[in-house]
């Protein structure tokens, strides 16, 4: 059918316009753009070695699922955009036969390669430049698993476009399954809030960041004016399958700053309202569609595949290339025909064992996928894990809820705790325990990871991070492994431990780790989340009283008004702490503090006070207990940082500021200094942080103050007296 349509579609555009029925019967060739690069770092460190789309999902590379689906959905021509590891993707396409299939009735697959694309936006700009897309096309990323029928959505899109040429995109969405406990989608991705017009299904609002900084969803009043009724959804999943008009490509080209499909393109269209273009949604009511965005969704989708929700994309129906067929047994157990399985080994429900794999005595495999050619010893427990091809697991190992890539070698007694990711060819030594949520790779962690929008480039990132010491590596056995720190700061552990680098978690931090890892969500988190739901709502209510908006506003402002200085002080202190830790050198520190000063629009003198405060605080922290040590550490700190302080004490005013600050500290925040005031003052004078002019002026000013304010002047009377005399002497000498 598709061949027929193509041959005729070329000929008679005029004829098609004449007859509606004919027109519907033979649409122009359907094209698809498949992004074989997710432009994120979520699957690191694995993606340093292999592109995400080629990672096996229940024995088959993800892209295989996507391409198979595209073909079954009636796509005539697919363009695979590859960027990172493009040669691997191309090689795969050739090897698997997709690239040659361009024959009749099947889908033609063309690889489009580009090496400087760093985002989906760049990819689409490249596609546009190639000029290969002629009509409406399907935009999908190579990590999407689906078996839905596109017919309805396509028809809807076409019909809508006929009526309204501004409807440029139809987004496929699906009802997601919010967990009653977490109110989280089970895919572990960011939660999406969208607003949809219930009648037209037009998308009015889209927000996909799960950061809790925005507790509220804010819908512009103009949207409400135009749409008296709208549906706010938190229960929808974005399938990341879009039916786009060719205008989408040109929009990306026109707006060269669009990078992210959702964050920039969709937001741009909705918020900036460029040319009035509209995005519509199509809710998927039957069929399956999900995108593998992170480890948790990898886990979830794998389970769905095993449980045959993705039929016909299931292990025993399509199997890639040469591997022998696997067969479905009872309880969702798939076993290849040539598996060597010990009689005492136990394979639990919903598990897959690949061909050529040998499993030893008394092993237990539960809810797990084991690849091809693996060797598993005796008494091994594998629970909820994904073991890829050619993995060797020796006797007595335990692997739970982890991802173990190809070629990994777990020596006897190794324990892999939940949430771990062991990348290719990593070795874990005897009786070594890999702590939960570790990521281990043979490649070092690249350094410049400041943005999550970056590429999966392995070759460009050769640097190694200065990651903070990571010391959760402990041996579980009797054999204590002392991690030897190498120059770069990451650990490489000898044969007794782990071969490979342990990656520290990036920006998201260990806190976010649970959300996206394979490991089940810990109990405390569940409770926390549940609490959050009920608590947050309560706390909102008093402040949000509609009848007293004025009062509330003013008090808010008031709080912010007096805040900046203390905030600034705090930030300076933090910056200083970092400097103490050795991360920042002195020049940069000054720069940073100056930056802060500008950001808070404060005076130079304020800086002096704040920096002085930080220095003294550091001395206090270092000293503890007795006055003697405190004096000593203070002297040390002042000596060390006098250059920094002097940088801020250029005028008498600023020096005064320091003295006043010191006084204030002694009275209020850090009373520990108060007995030492008179002893530290000379020191300040000696290090030339404070000049005698400043001290004299300070003393003069205080003369008229209250008795209580004069405590410190009195305390340092002797010193002031000495200064005065010295001054007189100076004067005399000059005379």
């Amino acid at each position, binding site marked *: 059918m598709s061949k027929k349509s193509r041959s005729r579609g070329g000929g008679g555009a005029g004829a098609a316009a004449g007859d509606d029925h004919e027109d519907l019967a033979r649409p122009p060739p359907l094209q698809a753009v498949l992004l074989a690069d997710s432009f994120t770092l979520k699957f690191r460190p694995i993606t340093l070695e292999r592109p995400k789309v080629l990672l096996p999902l229940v024995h088959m590379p993800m892209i295989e699922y996507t391409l198979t689906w595209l073909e079954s959905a009636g796509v005539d021509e697919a363009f695979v955009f590859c960027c990172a590891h493009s040669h691997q993707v191309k090689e795969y396409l050739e090897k698997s036969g997709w690239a040659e299939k361009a024959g009749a009735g099947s889908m033609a697959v063309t690889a489009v390669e580009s090496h400087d694309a760093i985002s989906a936006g760049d990819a689409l700009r490249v596609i546009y430049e190639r000029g290969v897309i002629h009509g409406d096309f399907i935009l999908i990323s190579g990590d999407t698993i689906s078996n839905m029928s596109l017919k309805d959505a396509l028809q809807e899109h076409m019909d809508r476009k006929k009526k309204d040429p501004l409807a440029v995109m139809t987004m496929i969405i699906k009802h997601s399954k919010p967990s*009653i406990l977490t109110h989280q989608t089970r895919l572990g991705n960011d939660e999406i809030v969208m607003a949809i017009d219930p009648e037209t299904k037009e998308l009015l609002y889209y927000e996909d960041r799960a950061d809790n900084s925005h507790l509220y969803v804010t819908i512009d009043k103009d949207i*409400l004016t135009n749409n008296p009724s709208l549906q706010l959804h938190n229960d929808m999943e974005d399938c990341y399958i879009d039916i786009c008009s060719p205008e989408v490509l040109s929009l990306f080209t026109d707006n060269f700053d669009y990078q992210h499909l959702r964050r920039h393109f969709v937001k741009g269209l909705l918020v900036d309202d460029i040319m009035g273009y509209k995005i519509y949604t199509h809710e998927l009511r039957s069929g399956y569609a999900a995108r593998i965005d992170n480890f948790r969704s990898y886990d979830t989708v794998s389970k769905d595949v095993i449980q045959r929700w993705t039929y016909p994309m299931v292990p025993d129906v399509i199997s890639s290339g040469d591997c022998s067929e696997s067969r479905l047994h009872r309880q969702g157990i798939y076993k290849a025909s040539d598996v060597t399985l010990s009689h005492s080994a136990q394979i639990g429900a919903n598990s897959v064992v690949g061909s050529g794999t040998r499993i030893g005595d008394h092993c237990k495999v539960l809810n797990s996928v084991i690849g091809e050619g693996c060797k598993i010893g005796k008494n091994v427990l594998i629970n909820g894990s994904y073991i890829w091809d050619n993995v060797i697991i020796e006797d007595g190992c335990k692997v739970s809820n982890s991802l173990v890539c190809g070629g990994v070698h777990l020596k006897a007694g190794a324990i892999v705790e939940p949430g771990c990711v062991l990348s290719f060819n990593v070795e874990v030594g005897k009786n070594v325990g890999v702590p939960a949520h570790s990521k281990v790779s043979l490649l070092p962690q690249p350094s410049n990871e400041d943005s999550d929008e970056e590429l999966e480039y392995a070759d460009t990132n050769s640097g190694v991070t200065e990651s903070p010491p990571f010391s959760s590596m402990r041996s579980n056995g009797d054999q204590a492994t002392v991690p030897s720190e190498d120059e770069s700061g990451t650990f490489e552990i000898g044969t007794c431990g782990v071969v490979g680098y342990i990656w520290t978690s990036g920006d998201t931090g260990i806190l976010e780790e649970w959300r996206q890892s394979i490991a089940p969500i810990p109990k405390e988190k569940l409770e926390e989340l549940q609490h959050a739901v009920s608590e947050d709502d309560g706390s909102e209510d008093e402040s949000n009283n509609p009848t007293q908006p004025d009062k509330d506003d003013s008090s808010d402002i008031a709080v912010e008004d007096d805040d900046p200085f203390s905030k600034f002080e705090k930030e300076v202190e933090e910056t200083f702490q970092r400097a103490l830790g050795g991360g920042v050198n002195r020049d940069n520190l000054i720069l940073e503090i100056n930056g802060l000063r500008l950001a808070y629009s404060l005076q130079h003198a304020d800086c002096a006070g704040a920096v002085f405060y930080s220095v003294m605080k550091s001395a206090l922290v270092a000293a503890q207990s007795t006055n003697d040590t405190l004096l000593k550490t203070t002297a040390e700190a002042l000596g060390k940082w006098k250059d920094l302080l002097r940088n801020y004490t250029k005028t008498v005013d600023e020096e005064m500021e320091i003295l006043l600050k010191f006084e204030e500290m002694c009275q209020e925040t850090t009373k520990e200094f108060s007995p030492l005031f008179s002893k530290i003052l000379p020191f300040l004078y000696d290090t030339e942080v404070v000049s005698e002019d400043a001290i004299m002026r300070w003393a003069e000013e205080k003369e008229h103050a209250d008795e209580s304010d004069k405590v410190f002047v009195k305390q340092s009377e002797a010193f002031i007296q000495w200064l005065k005399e010295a001054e007189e002497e100076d004067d005399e000498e000059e005379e």
Partner: protein
Amino acid sequence: MDFQVVVLAGGTSETLSPLVSKDVPKALLPVANRPLLSYALDLLEASDLKDLIVVVEGQEAARLVGAWVSSAYLDRLCVEVLAVSEDLGSAGALRAISKRLTANDILVISGDLVTDVLPGAVAATHRRNGAAVTALLCSVPVSGPSETASSSGKDKAKKPNRLNIVGLDKTKQFLLHIVSGTDVEKDVRVHKRKIQAVGQMEIRSDLMDAHLYAFKRTILQDVLEQKEAYRSIRLEVLPYLVRSQLRSAPSGGHGTTVGETGNSAVLSSGNLQCLSQHHVITPSAFKQDALSRSHGGHRCCAYIATKSKYCHRLNSIQSYCDINRDVIGEASHLSGYSFSAQNNIIHPSSVLGSKTTIGPHCILAEGSQLGDKCSVKRSVIGRHCRISSNVKIVNSVVMNHVVIEDGCHIQGSVVCNNVQLQERSVLKDCQIGAGYIVTAGSEHKAESLARK
């Protein structure tokens, strides 16, 4: 039904001056020649809600209302008229009579509501859902002097005025979010947790809070007691209840027994729906209903009147005109009169001069006289009015005992009791207070005139 009904009949509202005065409190303001309060009372009677407390602001007003009620509803309703001091607000008035409330559920209705939505239906919904509060929501009524094409065009450009923004769950039973008062013109802010808890929320800006509520008594009394500053039910009490409904522990363990049966019924049906959807769409591991309301908090429900129902509050001069127009026009079933073939009502005791025409959608009450060559269109004329010749009355309300002399033109105006319009005076969009005398030949446009 164990419902106690509280009718908040107001007092002598400032916003309605000069129509209301000491002699005519708001409750007794004639709408199509019937006191305003009678619309609410008839409605309650139709729902078999006969145990009423009518709360009136001000002693004098209460006396007048009480006198009228006892004469008009002597055998039909059991009405107790209570006076509260003025300027308490709706919540304040409720607080003042809080001790008189004894039934499990309280129906609070504003005395200025003209509607054909049965309060009984709201009460039943309330019971069925075991709700803490159920509010009647209806479509925002068409406002403005309509008929004339020009002004309606202007209105369209202005867009219908937004009165409330409400958030509903997907079954449209639960009230999840409400914005009222001045905030409606701002951007809508919805707490994310709330959306997370329910999954899906429908935001509507085309509904209005009709000021007809069913409350669970204990919860209502708690709120009134704890939040002493709350003055308005619509602006404060209801939003507070809606905001606090997801809280884990309500302010005390009471009031749950009544709701239990209702709870389970609603939730199970919700579950069924959810489950069936999950069946189709989502694979592995079923999850239970996302409505987390079951964990102890109360719930706020909404009864949404269908579009065909009439629902309007008389709280401004404009709405007074609108309601009069509608009651004798498109919503004529509300008036309780039977209209003639010409779609109007002319009392047999009235006298019409020659060549005088009374158009459709008019009411001419008993004892009124019209001279020759008069024309009345879409207007209400009260009792015992004396109208001379060549008078034109269009889109207006003329109350009782009004004297209109030759050649007067009245358009879009309200003329109160005992007003005298001298010869050839012209009124357009005016309100004339009781007893005022409009001098001969004067012309007034969009003015409010009252005796000093």
